[in-house]
């Protein structure tokens, strides 16, 4: 009798859990998640007026789904990307600023929104060029960091 009652309670809990789960699950099961990476340029003491950066994501672990500007100021507007160079996991972004007050040292210049396809993700930010207002190239560096997923 006790065994039967225990079985009944277990069955009840299983039914309850299953009914509850089917009710709260999203209607579309997510096949992948979304997140972003921030791109940085460090131009040292030189004022940064223009840049071009290539972002490469290894193993097609993610694809680009949007491009946002960086920190407030000269590069807050979303940069342009080269559509012909765009692939599943590679993008070249570029921007220039005509402002008189330009940033120097390390600056977040863009946020790249991504759809992740794999958890093992590696990014590489290659600085193609960075320049001052008069077009002089700057010896700068680029870096990338993945943001926390919401």
């Amino acid at each position, binding site marked *: 009798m006790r065994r039967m009652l225990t079985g*009944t309670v277990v069955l009840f809990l299983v039914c309850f859990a299953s009914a509850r789960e089917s009710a*709260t699950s999203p*209607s*579309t099961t997510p096949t992948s998640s979304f997140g972003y990476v921030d791109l940085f340029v460090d131009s040292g003491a030189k004022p940064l007026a223009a840049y071009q950066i290539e972002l490469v994501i290894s193993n097609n672990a993610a*694809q680009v789904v949007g491009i946002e500007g960086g920190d407030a100021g000269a590069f807050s507007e979303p940069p342009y990307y080269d559509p*012909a160079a*765009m692939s599943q996991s590679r993008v070249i972004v570029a921007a220039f600023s005509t402002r008189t007050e330009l940033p120097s040292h390390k600056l977040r210049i863009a946020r790249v929104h991504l759809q992740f396809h794999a958890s093992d993700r590696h990014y590489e930010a290659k600085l193609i060029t960075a320049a001052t207002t008069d077009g002089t190239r700057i010896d700068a560096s680029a870096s990338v960091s993945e943001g926390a997923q*919401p």
Partner: protein
Amino acid sequence: MKSHHLFKRVLLASLTLSLCLLAIVIGCSQAIRPQPQAADRSIDSASQHHQQARPAPSAVAPAPAPAITESVTGSANSLTPESHKESRPDPDTLTSSLAPEDELWVIQKSPMTACPAPEDSVPGAGALLANTSQSKEPLPIPLKHTDVKASIAGYIATVDVTQQYHNPFSEKIEAVYVFPLPANAAVNDFLMTIGTRKIRGIIRERAEAEKIYREARSQGHVASLLTQERPNIFTQSVANIEPGKEIDINIKYFHTLSYADGWYEYHFPMVVGPRFNPPETPDPITPKALESPVGTPGTQIPYLKPAERTGHDISLALHVDAGVAIEDLQSINHRVESKRNSATSADIKLASDDSIPNKDFVLRYKVAGGTLKSALMTQRTEKGENYFTLMVYPPESLNDLPRQPLEMVFTLDVSGSMDGAPLEQSKSAIRYALSHMRPDDTFQIIRFANGAERLSPQSLPATQNNIRQALTFIESTSAGGGTSMIEGIRASLNFPHDEQRLRFVSFLTDGYIGNEAEILREVHTSLGPSRIFSFGVGSSTNRYLLDTMARLGKGAVAYLALNEKGEDVMSHFFDRISHPALTNVSIDWNGLDATDVYPSSAPDLFVGRPIILTGKLKEAKDTTIRLTGKVGGQTKEIQIPVRLSDSSNANPGVTAVWARMKIAQLSDRSLYEPASDLPAQIRQVALDHNLVSQFTSFVAVDSSSRTAGDHGTSVAVPVPVPAGVRYETTVRE
């Protein structure tokens, strides 16, 4: 004993069953209670007027937020947390009177029959179900305002369109808006603005972009998707707009202006006219009443009834830098405020009291000089490629040559959408044409709606008697029925041709059909020696259809607004055809090394009608281009001096215009070469040049935050029927 055991088993089984049922019921009730979680939903707009408004949680929207009533797809009954009565109490008030462990179930019968929504994974699933009241209050819709800023340099326009979406409801929504753009618009930039943050959209293959959007939507991310349904019809979807929040979508495009008889024309369409779709039309554009069911395949456009209105309005500002003196400016359909900055430049603004988006904005400006020099514009890309556009004007000497005898065919659309002013204007235009024919011309009149009918089995000589007979035929014509344009095309192109004369076929129509591909394929197949001159009649004509018919038909197109006289437009047409065209045009680039030139075969040159060529140049140098063609059996040559040193290499949009013209040519060919790799070619051009096309779309996702729940209810943005079009004869209830 056995019976005792049996009783215990039955008792336990009953207990188990009861507990299981209870568990399922509790679980299900939790699925129903939080509104945003249900998979299939629809919005009952009628309830928006009846329910006591619930303040939006974010308190951004100052106005009371209409609540959304959910209904269970496929059933007339729905379970909602709210009362079914017309005067509904605030659900928050109701729930506040309950103990935490209590549950409130209200069984509601939907005021409308809920209908199966399209597959939930399809963007735009769901429906704005009903507003059956005749309230004078504007309907709450998610599109608040459209702002257009355009700038014209030479004959290329750069246009920024900002659509301001908001959520006036109390729950999260997805906004879906079907809207028009010019058919030759090269849409190459897309921005989504959330507060102060701007996210640039990415061009992707359409299926891939739709998949990204669906997945972002289902995971609660704010996302947007721009797809092309026709070259002049687009769908904008914006997912997960929270109550009270605003999201702006900015679209940028370039296009060339049309030019005829000394006037440039800038055109911005504001509403998609209701389309007639013959049976078996693939991917139809379906007009429907606001409260009619969803579930039809293709693109559906909900139309407002005549007494209904929304708060959506439009502002438009246009800067013209003509490069030569502007002699006159005319806004055809709207009141405008204009300011002349200089002899060659002007600013035009839509008057604030004429801001309902129910007709095309058309601005024409006349430039100085009887004959313009052919104009070259170039753009050098960062990769060192030189693109050009060249507007070639016909030579003045064509004006001195008389025309040959003509066989003129007037094909009149008498379907329901032409009822009223459009039909009367068309009749007036044909009357003018009949009275200006020469005795050695012949003519035919064809009218079509559900079927087609000819005046006579073959063309008639333009005698007084035959013209009288034709006028009687025209006067007896009234509008009604569907638009089986295919019948009109066949009747116009497939009857015995008068071999002694050049056949000109004039279609007078609003072009409100959804089977454009079938029509254009038939034009290509049946054209023969005919030339097609389309006349678009109405306030929001289907210019993609009419422009392409004229292009494939080796003719031209003219547009007749509701406030213009049919005889005036026909008079211009007669001026044009009163002189021979330069046919069989070939181009000698004279060492300029032009490649990838579109259109690849130059069209005929008619008096007053220039053509635009676009291509790539390997080397930019000054030269003289030579055009040769046939006029009345004789070869004629036009010399066009091209001074690349005078042309700035920084004309924005030239590259995009080139790519759009290439796509247009590939698309034309794909109509009659279905088993080719043309779709792949179109896709590649569009991806390389960041252009929206039938195979590529813009998608933007804000991955940095998620809204609560999976995704909101889809709300289609209803639009007014175009000015001059009768709702009763065009919209399916």
